[in-house]
């Protein structure tokens, strides 16, 4: 009986990815590209994705920007407020490498140094299709228990 419920819950994780986004010092380019994902042209609601305004309701964290020193603690805080299981998607080049800000003394330069990132979306800024694909992939990872937050929970 509990097997059926576990199966139901894991399918639900794939079908219903709720997204929260955090801007860690981004130039707003990536954030502007997130908006069309939920507009008539791309309509993320077809795969069940909904933008949530509270991190407590979210499953997937979208992080954009090179993680400046001032936003580092906030990013950590928001990540901890998301109830597990959760997935993290880094948007664009900034959270991956620091992009044009690389070497600046005011940035951490990599989201990986602050929180465990599951997926990177390449581009500066990435296309909305790529962002939607990442959300879908993250939802599949949540279903199979492949995200890093789920794997760490298994090791404990």
């Amino acid at each position, binding site marked *: 009986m509990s097997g059926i419920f576990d199966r*139901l*819950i*894991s*399918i*639900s*994780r794939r*079908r*219903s990815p709720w997204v929260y986004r955090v801007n860690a010092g981004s130039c707003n380019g990536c954030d502007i590209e997130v908006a069309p994902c939920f*507009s*008539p042209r791309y*309509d993320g*609601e*077809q795969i*069940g994705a909904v933008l*949530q*305004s*509270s991190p*407590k*309701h979210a*499953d997937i964290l979208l992080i954009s920007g090179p993680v400046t020193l001032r936003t580092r603690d906030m990013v950590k805080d928001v990540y901890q*407020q998301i*109830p*597990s*299981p959760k997935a993290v998607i880094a948007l664009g080049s900034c959270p991956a490498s620091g992009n044009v800000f690389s070497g600046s003394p005011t940035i951490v330069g990599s989201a990986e140094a602050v929180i465990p990132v599951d997926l990177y979306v390449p581009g500066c800024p990435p296309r909305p299709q790529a962002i939607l694909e990442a959300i879908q992939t993250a939802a599949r990872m949540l279903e199979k228990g492949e995200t890093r937050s789920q794997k760490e929970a298994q090791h404990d």
Partner: protein
Amino acid sequence: MTNWWLQALFSILIWPGLLTGALIGWFLLWVSRKIVAQFQGRQGPPFYQPFFDFWKLPGKKTIIPSGANPFLFYALPVLSVISVVLALALVPVPGGSVISFDGDLVLFIYLMEMPALIDVIAGFATRSVYAQVGSSREALLTLAYNLPFLSALIALALKWKSFQLAAFSSAPVTLATVAAALALFLALLAQMKVNPFSIPNAEQEIVAGIHVEYNGLPLALFELTHALELSALVGLIASLFIGPFGSAWIKLLVYLAVAAVAVILLNLVSAGTARLKVQHAFRFYWTWGVAAAAVVFITALAF
């Protein structure tokens, strides 16, 4: 006697209670999202979306915010679901609910008030400023939308000289029924917290409103309450129209048709309007709500 208890349990848990109430509620929520999406030129979610949105949440870890009482945090949503399920069991569906007695209208009104009151307490209990703003807005709105809601039900009770919901659903459809349905519909907009009265849960504006700190299983129970509330209130409006039809199947058809019309109208209004400020919503209900109440009383007592 045991037979009655079994039938009562059936009413509470299966029809028209928890199981069908939740399934119909989820279906109506999908219809709402689909209609709004179509009006915005989008495809909208697949029909199973509200079902999976609900089942995902119990599988998540529940974080209790610091400073909140854990007992209160869990007990409020449970209480909210129980009261709506009991209210749903009283709805005079086609075929009739076995739980029907003189005065069940009063019990129904009390039980339908519970989710709003619990929302107010839940907002303050989680100690988030955004939830507290949402709570105070919700408390203000209950004073506004209950005016058409209560006067429609009281006018019908005066007309049919009964405080029993079954008397409403077996009475013939008159002008008073239509007026009462319109007044109930006016209240339904604010009870369902859709635009233009999405004031307590205003997304973006006050983060996520009352439920901002809720997550996991308690949030799932609040979502379930919302679905059950929708099917109970739409069911109440639809049950006013099933009186004159003899056969149970035609009754069921009319019931579903009226429910569909109510939900489509609800979402036409919601897709076509923007959010009001709380003082404007209050003024709306104390002018047009009073007008609707007056019309219901006049049609109920004069014709």
